[in-house]
């Protein structure tokens, strides 16, 4: 395995949780809701996923539990922000703080437990191909799921009627409501999808990426996913690119350090953020102007309007 191949492999695994969490939040925001609770839902996914996997011995059930935990957390948010039309920013922040605390409680008895990492795909012949083999055919299942998710979300938003309705709710919920669409129900489904994705990303962290549980192990990845959605101007392909760019620079700067490149490590550590922001800002400026945010983003909807 060459160094380049190894770097590519690592970049893909490092970017995958960001892709999964961000694509979920993209759908939520396209429906007009800002859920800042990604970090909290993600870490609950990590805790519950790991706990379930340890108790049942099955990684698959662990993944399901992670997704379930994310959805359950998102329902709390939905109750506050959709049901009671509370401020979405405050509700989302509360969800993050709540999730960080609750996950510590859920995971308390699983500290120090260990599991083998999830096995990687091994297709006879294909995985052994030079270069493309391990990179394209030798990843863990999450990586394929993440790409599949991005493709499906893109297809759903741009090629289906339901996607059009969801976007309508995000652009102008009053009009969507006037046309007879159930704004709150559609937003509820979007929020649940976002929660499921965040939970899945969390389960990826505790089951495949670093297979153990530790409080605070998401270490801010939920916030990065949120930022990527904004800087990708709410477009799935751009989001995929932004996440891989972020992951790529993160890994490359580690390699640069290992090779003794004489640049302050603090600057190298800041590079992923800088490069991702600059790249995505430049792109969104050239293509679609600045006003790419869904029109009704963050505005609570209630039927009394």
């Amino acid at each position, binding site marked *: 395995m060459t160094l380049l191949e190894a770097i590519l492999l*690592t970049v893909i695994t490092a970017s995958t949780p960001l892709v999964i969490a961000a694509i979920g939040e993209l759908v939520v925001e396209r429906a007009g809701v800002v859920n800042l609770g990604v970090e909290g839902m993600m870490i609950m996914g990590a805790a519950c996923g790991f706990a379930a996997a340890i108790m049942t011995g099955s990684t698959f059930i662990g993944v399901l539990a992670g997704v379930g935990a994310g959805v359950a957390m998102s329902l709390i948010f939905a109750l506050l922000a959709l049901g009671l039309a509370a401020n979405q920013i405050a509700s989302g922040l509360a969800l993050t703080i709540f999730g960080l605390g609750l996950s510590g409680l859920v*995971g308390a008895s699983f500290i120090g437990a260990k599991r083998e990492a999830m096995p990687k795909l091994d297709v006879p012949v294909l995985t052994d191909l030079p270069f493309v083999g391990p990179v394209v055919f030798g990843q863990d299942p999450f990586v394929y799921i993440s790409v599949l998710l991005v493709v499906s979300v893109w297809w759903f938003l741009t090629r289906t009627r339901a996607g059009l309705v969801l976007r309508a709710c995000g652009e102008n919920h009053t009009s969507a409501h006037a046309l007879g669409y159930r704004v709150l129900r559609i937003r509820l489904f979007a929020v649940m999808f976002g929660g499921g994705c965040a939970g899945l990303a969390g389960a990826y*962290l505790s089951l495949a990426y670093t297979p*153990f549980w*530790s409080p605070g192990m998401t270490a801010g990845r939920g916030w990065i996913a949120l930022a990527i959605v904004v800087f990708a101007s709410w477009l799935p392909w751009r989001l995929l690119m932004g996440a891989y760019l972020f992951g790529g620079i993160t890994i490359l700067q*580690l390699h640069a350090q290992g090779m*003794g490149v*004489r640049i302050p490590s603090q600057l190298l550590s800041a590079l992923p953020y800088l490069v991702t922001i600059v790249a995505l800002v430049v792109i969104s400026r050239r293509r679609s102007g600045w006003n790419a945010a869904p029109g009704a983003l963050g505005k609570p909807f209630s039927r009394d309007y």
Partner: protein
Amino acid sequence: MSFNRRDLIKGAGVAAGAAALGTSAVAQAAPLQVGFIYVGPVGDFGWSTMHDIGRKRLEEVMGAQVKTTPVESVAANDMERVATQLARQGHRLIFTTSFSFFQATMRVAPTLPQTFFESATGTATAPNVSLYNARFYEGRYVQGVIAARKSKSKTIGYIASFPVPEVMHAINTVMRGAWSVDPSMKIRVVWVNAWFNPGREADAARALIDQGCDVICQHTDSPAPLQLANERGVFGFGQASDMTKFAPRAHLTSSVNNWGDYYVERARAVINGTWKPGDVWGGLGSGLFRLAPFTNMTPEEASEAQKIAEALGSGKLNPFDGPIVRADGTEVIGAGGRLTDDQIRSMNYFYRGVDVAVPG
């Protein structure tokens, strides 16, 4: 029955007086309240976990004489607030358990003269600030020796947290140990700018292993790098606690911290009124830390490592004996000399042969 306003005020005054009397009466027999401020979660299975085990040991030994309050995952810039709050709640002894807290501890201590602070690592004491630390570099020296025996690529990978002297002298000492076996040993260092970030620590380990390092040293707190070493079939060392079970094929040894006995001693000193600012820096001989049983090593390798650990513990071997030459070629100390503790604690350079960029 009705109360007028005057009665209410009178009543409140009496109640307040009674309450004040009550607290002062209780204070005589009240347990000593001891606060612990951790930089990471108690479940990091590393640095903060071991401080918390020390706290539990304190409770176990002292029983009803103490009452402890742990506060976990405190950011360095939030430390002063947490410490002030603990002091206001009546904590008379507060352990601030990270070098990241040291500056904040020195700032907050003069404002709380009734409270005794104990900073785990630091560079100076104050009338109510003590320092305590273990000479973990002795463990690093042993790691270097073992790494030189185990490495085929002759390259050690080091996952570093922050460019503070504690980390820099540890990197130097690992190489001192490695060179004592094989002068051709090399090191690659990656700074992750965190004490605890499992994902990034694992990424750093991946990068180092991909670059050919086959023994991984970590100066961060999670078992992620060691676990990754296990997955990739290279060797590694555990940090702060015995991490054998995370990496049955990769684990060589771990430095296992033991703060409990020190905590008991200091709490007793406060209760007896004999607390004085001190500066404890104990090595392998002091019991502040020990090496976990050697694993994945031949009996010869293990007995060599054991002998070196004993020599370090008894003081026969000192990793800071001269000659020491900095990376830029200037001599720090000649043959026959030895660095003082202050020089070790303020080390901000790498030795010649440690080809690593010093961050900003």
